[in-house]
């Protein structure tokens, strides 16, 4: 979606034509879902985050000044929402760990090849934990690059840092992941 077109749609919405927000929702729902998935690793939770972000964006559309791209603004809201959610989750980590364990046990029972499934689950859990353990800025840069394939310039705009800083974060993130996964 072009920048001028986006601004036109936003003006329409602010003038009362709220149904026009459907165009924005259709365009960005999947993209925001992908970013959220990088943090949450769960379809349902990523959908909830994408939904929450779009509603937040709709409610604060009058604060969008058009200085950045709409996508940049939406990705920034998504990153902040995900980081807030993960911080909240840290407080109730014990319960979520028990839930995860239960889910895994029941999932494995339903598989045709439990041994293979267990190995895959173990590997996935290892990677998830390695990504989750990254410091938040490294994690954000890594997710935006790998899950959304955004350029360093776009990432720098979303994170409001220089491109050089993004490159550093990406390098550190990758080396941290390699260490944790012993690649």
């Amino acid at each position, binding site marked *: 979606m072009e920048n001028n077109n986006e601004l036109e749609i936003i003006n329409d919405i602010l003038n009362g034509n709220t*149904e026009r927000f459907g165009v924005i929702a*259709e365009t960005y729902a999947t993209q925001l879902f992908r970013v959220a*998935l*990088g943090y949450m690793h769960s379809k349902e939770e*990523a*959908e909830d985050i994408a939904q929450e972000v779009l509603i937040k964006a709709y409610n604060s559309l009058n604060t969008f000044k058009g200085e950045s791209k709409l996508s940049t603004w939406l990705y920034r809201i998504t990153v902040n929402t995900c980081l807030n959610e993960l911080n909240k989750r840290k407080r109730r980590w014990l319960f979520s760990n028990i839930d995860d364990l239960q889910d895994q046990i029941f999932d494995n029972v339903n598989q045709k090849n439990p041994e293979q499934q267990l190995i895959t689950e173990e590997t996935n859990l290892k990677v998830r934990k390695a990504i989750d353990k990254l410091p938040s800025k490294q994690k954000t840069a890594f997710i935006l690059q790998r899950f959304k394939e955004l350029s360093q310039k776009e990432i720098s705009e979303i994170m409001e840092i220089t491109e050089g800083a993004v490159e550093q974060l990406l390098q550190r993130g990758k080396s941290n*992941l390699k260490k944790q996964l012993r*690649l």
Partner: protein
Amino acid sequence: MTQNIKPNKNILDNFIDKELEIKPNPFLAAKVMEKIATQSSDYLGKSKNLETTHTLVFKLTMTLSAAAILALGVFLGSNYTYFDKYNNQSNNSLALNINDTQLENLYLYSLDE
């Protein structure tokens, strides 16, 4: 041996590819629009209720003010009548009660003369 090492090198890529295969609910955008519509109607409902409450409070204030003004008028009117009667009846006794001990004596100014 190499077969065991090779997949390990790609576990990160495999994981990301697998996660990217997950597709969101195709009605995600529609769900968002539905929530926004509900939210807007809730907001409109709330503002209508607020408007009704404001009108009611305004009407009540106006009625109470009018009643208060009437009561004050009646009260002042009846008090005035009573005071008038009192004046007529005990005007002299009131004059006798004036205490002039604190008044400055005029002769103090005329000592030199």
